[in-house]
């Protein structure tokens, strides 16, 4: 299993929430707005890609265990 740059989904979600709260509280000035929204869209895209754009991948591990011959 690969340990790539792991997206911390929850962190992404937290950051998104922060941006959203900022927006809703109308605390952001317009200059900041575009930066934040860009960041939000980026995070969303990143998460979505990681979740959707990977094929289902299955890997098998076999460790033989003795079993009674007629059991299966």
């Amino acid at each position, binding site marked *: 299993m690969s340990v790539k740059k792991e997206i911390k989904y929850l962190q992404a979600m937290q950051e998104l929430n922060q941006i959203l709260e900022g927006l809703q509280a109308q605390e952001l000035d317009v200059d900041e707005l575009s930066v934040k929204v860009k960041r939000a869209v980026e995070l969303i895209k990143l998460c979505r890609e990681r979740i959707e754009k990977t094929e289902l*991948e299955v890997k098998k591990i076999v460790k033989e265990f003795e079993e009674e011959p007629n059991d299966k």
Partner: protein
Amino acid sequence: MDSIFENIPKVFTVLELNTAACAVLKRGFPMPVWVAGEVQRVSDKGHIYFDLVQKGSGGTQVVAQVNAVMFANIWAKVSNKFKEAGIAFALKSDIEVKFLCEVDIWAKGGKYSIKILDVDPAYTLGKVALARAKIIEELRKAGLLEKNKRLDIAAVPLRLGLVTSYNSAAYHDFINELAISGFGFSVEVYDSLMQGENTQNSVTAALNHFSGFAPGELDVIVVARGGGSKADLGWFDNKKIAETIANCSFPVITALGHQIDTTIADLAANLTVKTPTAAAQYLAARVKAFMDDLVQRETDILRSCAEALSGGRVSLQNISLRLESDVSGYFRLHRERLLAARHTVAARAERVFSRDQQFLTAAAVSLEGTLNKIFKNQRQRVQYSEGLIQSLDPVNVLKRGYSVTFKDGKAVKTISDVPAGTTITTMLVDGTFVSDVKETSPGG
């Protein structure tokens, strides 16, 4: 040898002996008997062979044991009975069971054994339940029932460790359901035995394998088992498996394919679902929930952004409107003030003018009067002066008979100027004459 025995005519073959012993035994046990004991060394070869053991009060020492066999047809009947009662029952080691059995000697082997005819579910279950309750209590005391539940299942559980029998129905149900979701799940399958005596070793090895992953490499471990026979569920009423689940470093989801019963393994798991399909659905739903949340956040952010912008635009508009009205108000006010001021100034000026005009008119009138007076006065004075001057003109005086006497060119004004003998010149109006003074007399 004792002579008494020499008279016994019959000589048995071994088989005859065994058969005869068996007959005696059967006469001694004309009816089947109930025997309770602990099952050990189960061997399932179609027919199930095992040892029925009696243990000492300590629970470890074997006091007595007997070989037992349950033929396949009996096992089928018994399984069915348990199944109908809705009870998970597996004939496995360490459980205490009450069997109805026939005592038997296998003629060929000469071995004494019991042949199982039936199982008493009530007794067996009572014992199973007791043993089970004991295990559960031990796990509970050790805090192992809650241990795995304290691990949070990842918000996006995409990397899965699957403990199941590879290629089994459970495996396919699980994988197919994941594939349907369309999410990028990554599954590592550990091919395990999900029934039989080796279930414990196989499943714990699989769990330990996945538990050894580094944090962040795996999200969830799923233990999945297909429909199969209900009896086989009993393999998961297992303390070792439960302990291993509890100690896993990742959340464990059990999906053992049963509808009603909960195994001990289930109790120790983070989450228990009924079927492998349900487990896959749960995971996919969790990922989808995250995705939906993501979409919701996205919508919210864009909407809030639009609102913030339009809010800004509106307030700008408001400000500019207010500014406009303020400015025009300011100008209007000042224009009004200017107009008023102009009126005031004009009115005051007019008042001043009219007052001054009156004054001037009056002044002019009075000035004229004064001037007239002055002129008249002056004229009078001039006339008077003229008269005076005329009267003073020496010519006029001379005309009136007066004369002027000069001595040496100077007018004589006193008698002392002309002592006797002085030559004087006297001027009359029409000529002069010279004379000598004879005598003088002072006084006028």
